[in-house]
């Protein structure tokens, strides 16, 4: 279980990527998302894969962690692959069983769709792996700041996000502990039939919710006692300084997007 909690954890290796401005990283990830959506052919998939691996290596974090980050979504990826393969009818027929045919085009788009998903999840893990949640928060705050002009309270948004990031691992841990306690009382989720599994998970809702509320309540008291007032002006502990390397970092993503889009539409 703990293994699956890579989400939202910073792995400090002190690489150049770690030291980039979080705003640059967030902007990069948004651009990457655009590039990924636009990828639709083998050469461009290859370009994106190479681009991604270069950056992953630059973080000095073992590649297996990125693979692990995408792992929880494998069911979804298989699903996307199957659906795409079966619905796209173009190119040669690879396999024919009765009235049903599998096309080469279908396989291709299925594979690319699944690969895009895997790339997106594992690559965006760069952001959480190389940025402490606090910096991430502040970066997000910086990126969202323009929204304040149209009346959106971005401080609340980022506070909510940071608390969620902070407590998701704790709450998952707790759920795991309750599951163990249930197993000790003869209801081992691993051994139960599917219907019973569902029932058991449902029963966890009570203790997990009770505990999440208790935690939230205590956290609010603690924040209040340290003088926190929603929306009140605050100074910032981390100083974000945009440097030339951050510009280059973002430009490399702009280039990726440009290449992918040009190939697609020309």
């Amino acid at each position, binding site marked *: 279980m703990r293994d699956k909690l890579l989400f939202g954890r910073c792995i400090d290796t002190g690489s150049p990527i770690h030291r980039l401005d979080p705003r640059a990283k967030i902007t990069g990830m948004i651009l990457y998302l655009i590039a990924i959506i636009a990828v639709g052919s083998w050469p461009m998939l290859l370009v994106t894969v190479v681009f991604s691996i270069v950056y992953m290596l630059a973080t000095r974090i073992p590649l297996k962690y990125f693979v692990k980050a995408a792992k929880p979504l494998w069911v979804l990826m298989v699903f996307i692959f199957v659906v795409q393969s079966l619905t796209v009818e173009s190119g040669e027929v690879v396999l024919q069983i009765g009235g049903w045919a599998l096309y080469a085009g279908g396989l291709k788009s299925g594979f690319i769709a699944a690969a895009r998903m895997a790339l997106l999840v594992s690559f965006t893990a760069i952001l959480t792996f190389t940025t402490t949640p606090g910096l991430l928060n502040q970066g997000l705050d910086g990126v969202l700041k323009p929204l304040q002009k149209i009346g959106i309270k971005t401080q609340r948004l980022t506070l909510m996000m940071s608390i969620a990031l902070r407590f998701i691992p704790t709450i998952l841990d707790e759920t795991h502990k309750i599951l163990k306690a249930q197993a000790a009382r003869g209801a081992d989720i691993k051994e139960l039939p599917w219907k019973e599994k569902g029932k058991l998970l449902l029963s966890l809702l009570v203790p997990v919710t009770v505990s999440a509320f208790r935690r939230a309540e205590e956290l609010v*008291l603690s924040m209040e006692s340290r003088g926190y007032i929603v929306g009140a002006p605050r100074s910032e502990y981390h100083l974000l300084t945009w440097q030339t390397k951050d510009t280059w970092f973002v430009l490399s993503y702009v280039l990726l997007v440009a290449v992918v889009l040009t190939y697609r539409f020309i």
Partner: protein
Amino acid sequence: MKDTVLAYELQQVSFAYHPQQQILDNINLRITAGSWVTLVGANGSGKSTLAKLLGGLLAANAGKIYVEGTEMNQESITHLRPRIGMVFQNPDNQFIGATVEEDIAFGLEGRCLPRDEMVERVKRYADKLEIGHLLSKHPAELSGGQKQRVAVAATLAMEPGIVIFDEASSMLDEKARGELQLIMREMSESGGYTIISITHDAEEILASDRAIVLKDGGVAADVSPLELFRNQELLSSCRLIAPFRVRLIQELSSRGIELDPGQDIEEVSEQLCRYISSK
């Protein structure tokens, strides 16, 4: 002679969540600045509620609370809050930042301190609590005792005059509990802090200057810690057990051997050895 400065003065304070169920009823208290006061009582005696009132996290339904001479109310609370720090029971649920330094800085950011001063204070208070080497750690990488030190550092960094410990040691292991008590002792000896602690821990109570016993929402006794531990009736009303040292002194006394409880068990042991070899 100058009047003693009061950290708190409570006049006929009452509190209830629902009108039919009074949690605190007509509390009158004066707490001298620089003293260390323990609030004790069984579950439901109202001690946690009282701590929240003192911390300005709840507002009294009736009566007045003066903090360092200023009446606590809607307007004054913003100015009074920086004077009052609180450390809570669960080390996890009061860790707001994502790292130790961010957590210590959290309150300072809210005070809009310039960055240089924040950095300086974070470092100074982290060093004071011996967590200077943990600044970049995530709470998941810290023990309960370390997290509780972070909470204390974050509180002290705000430079309050009053610090309320709300069962702050109860989830810690014995060693960390002892260490937290040492921190509290040092704070008290420095003379710079009024300490209010809510606790079941006998040693912590014994280290304080004064024990206020709450029962059914009222003050049942206001005594010295030793008086509390010598009064069986009071002890059972707040579900406490006297520390080993005090129980030993009493057992000895009932056998005609009179000793002084001293500061720690080593002092008792020396007295005992002297006593036996005196024969």
